[in-house]
């Protein structure tokens, strides 16, 4: 007797839970041969706002976690990604150029997660400073997370680009709302399942599927979002509009096609805090 597959409903990932879009909308995705793959949740403005609320409430605890703890939590994510390697490869294969290409992307994504995880307790050592001011003061500068970050992940690199986006933002203690690849959202949905079963607190990473053209403007103008990563925005006109919206509350903006190494990417979503105290008896 043949066995009928049980298919997965493709949902959003907000506050550690898997809701459908509150709008009830979905969109169809297809493989390379135009075969139907799934009905994916089409996130709405309300979903984006819910995700900001979830991210803000998760931010305090995550930013207060010790760097060592954040390192372990993110390393654990790479362990769980390794366990699902075949699933990721299979999903990438549906739209990938070749099996080899898909395998490479998954391996690179896992390695990148390990790399970023290891940065958690080194960022302050490398970017912070003890400042030799001209006076009897102890003065030091340390990096701190910017807060809630909205991100548009690259469409063309549905797992590797997504992992780079998420890891570089949360490793420093930020919470993120990321809009996944519109055309290839399945790896993002699987990554959400990895995150849900890892030790990443609910709300630290929120993944929306759907059209960034529709959702991103609401995040760019949202008063409780502190920074926006436009890496995945291909249209110059849309990037311009989003950057203008982001100016409303002076969000930190990472523009599309900005070439930078991983540490510079991490630093994009960090603030420097300087603390002074006098010396004396």
């Amino acid at each position, binding site marked *: 007797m043949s066995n009928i597959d049980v298919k997965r409903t493709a949902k959003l990932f907000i506050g550690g839970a898997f809701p459908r879009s509150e709008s009830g909308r979905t969109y169809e995705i297809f493989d390379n041969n135009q075969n139907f793959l799934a009905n994916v949740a089409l996130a709405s403005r309300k979903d984006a706002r819910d995700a900001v609320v979830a991210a803000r409430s998760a931010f305090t605890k995550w930013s207060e976690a010790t760097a060592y703890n954040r390192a372990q939590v993110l390393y654990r994510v790479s362990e769980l990604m390794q366990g699902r390697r075949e699933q990721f490869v299979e999903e990438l294969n549906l739209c990938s150029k070749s099996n080899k290409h898909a395998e490479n992307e998954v391996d690179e994504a896992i390695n990148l997660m390990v790399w970023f995880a290891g940065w958690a307790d080194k960022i302050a050592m490398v970017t912070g400073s003890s400042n030799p001011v001209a006076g009897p003061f102890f003065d030091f500068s340390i990096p701190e997370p910017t807060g809630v970050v909205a991100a548009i992940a690259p469409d063309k690199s549905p797992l590797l680009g997504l992992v780079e986006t998420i890891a570089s933002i949360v490793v420093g203690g930020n919470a993120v709302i990321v809009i996944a690849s519109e055309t290839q959202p399945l790896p993002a949905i699987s990554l959400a399942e990895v995150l849900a079963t890892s030790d990443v607190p609910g709300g630290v990473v929120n993944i929306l599927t759907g059209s960034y053209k529709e959702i991103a403007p609401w995040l760019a103008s949202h008063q409780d979002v502190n920074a926006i990563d436009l890496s995945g925005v291909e249209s110059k006109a849309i990037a311009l509009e989003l950057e203008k919206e982001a100016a409303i509350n002076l969000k930190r903006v990472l523009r599309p096609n900005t070439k930078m*190494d991983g540490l510079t990417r991490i630093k994009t979503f960090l603030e420097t805090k300087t*603390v002074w105290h006098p010396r004396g008896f």
Partner: protein
Amino acid sequence: MVFEYAPAPESTKVVNLKTNYELFIDGKFVKSKNGSTYKTINPATEEVLAEIIEASSEDIDYAVNSARKAFKSWSKLSGAERGKYIYRIARLIQERSRELAVLESMNNGKPIRESRDIDIPLVAAHFFHYAGWADKLDYAGLGKNPQPLGVAGQIIPWNFPLLMLAWKIAPALAAGNTVVLKPAETTPLTALLFAEICQQAELPDGVVNIVTGAGETGRFLVEHPEIDKVAFTGSTEVGRLIAQAVAGTDKKVTLELGGKAANIVFDDAAMDQAVEGVINGIFFNQGHVCCAGSRLLLQESISDEFLNLLYERMKTLRMGDPLDKNTDIGAINSAAQLAKIHALTQAGKSEGAEMWSAPCEIPNKGFWFAPTVFTNVSLSHRIAREEIFGPVLSVLTFRTPDEAIEKANNTPFGLSAGIWTEKGSRILEVAHRLRAGVIWANTFNKFDPTSPFGGYKESGYGREGGRQGLEAYLKAGK
């Protein structure tokens, strides 16, 4: 007891004012192509000091092109050689420090005690610090062989005219950029004197260009297509416009904007020190300080005692001639700023807060505002939310450390904050939880070229000072 002092004004003879000033472009003082002029005054006397050019878009074009031309050779000069020019500038500033201090106080209205002992020494220190960075850029944090950005368009405010110029120009030059700087409309004179210093230092033509004017001139500069970097210090309102103006371009931006800092005094604070710190926090430079401690958060159990000490101390503050060495509080920088302070204090009264001002004699001429405290202030009052940028302190109270932190962070700004307590662990925990870029514990309003300065949230982005400040003018090498 109040001691009577005889007047002790600093002589203005050290300053040679011209009747009118030209623009400084390509190493020379030049006439405007078609700009208009305006008069800059001494805010303490309302006397006209000189006539200043309001640079036109053609002037900006000329200045930016000169900076672009100079960039080719300046960026190729070895770091060691660039550094020596910057060291020369630092030394010339030290040599001419009295002249700069007097001129700063004349044009800005700040007490000579501050311009002489704080502003100008810090200006020299900034150039000295960044001069030494010029040949050490590999250690700036961007890997080997980092590159300058190109031409920087820099716009600075009127509260620390020459110090803000130093914060902008010193790191830009050290990193190999060239600059076009616009001083504030009301305080152009020390920047124009700085242009002379560049000539005396034989700085190559076009490396530093000084263009005067108001907001419109600034807009021409920000929007000029040949600018690679915009550095702005000023209001959050203008900061937003700049962030919008550069959207979609490759221009890098740093913004140093407004603040509404909480100065938190706990019940175990050393009271006399805390009173001095609160006074310095809000009345330094007439409160024309973006990081001013404009919201005093007092623990409820000590609030009456503290306020009495504060009022007694405020009664001894001397307001008057900025050039008098005994003056604590100088003039408000402009009629427009004075009107803004009046409007906000009026709002404070009409919203139900109680206003108390130190008994000061207000001079007949000039712009003055007596040191003022508002009590019975609630978080929703405009005087607790908006930047007044004057000698006006709003007092709120709290019971627990959590409440203090909650109130301190309840603002769209995040530039600075102060903590007064004798308990070390409390300092570190409160400093950790405050969302602000600079935290002063048991001190306030301290600045140093090695110490990064800048805000969280709507107080802007990027840092000035130290290695972090240098990074703002560099990109990774290839």
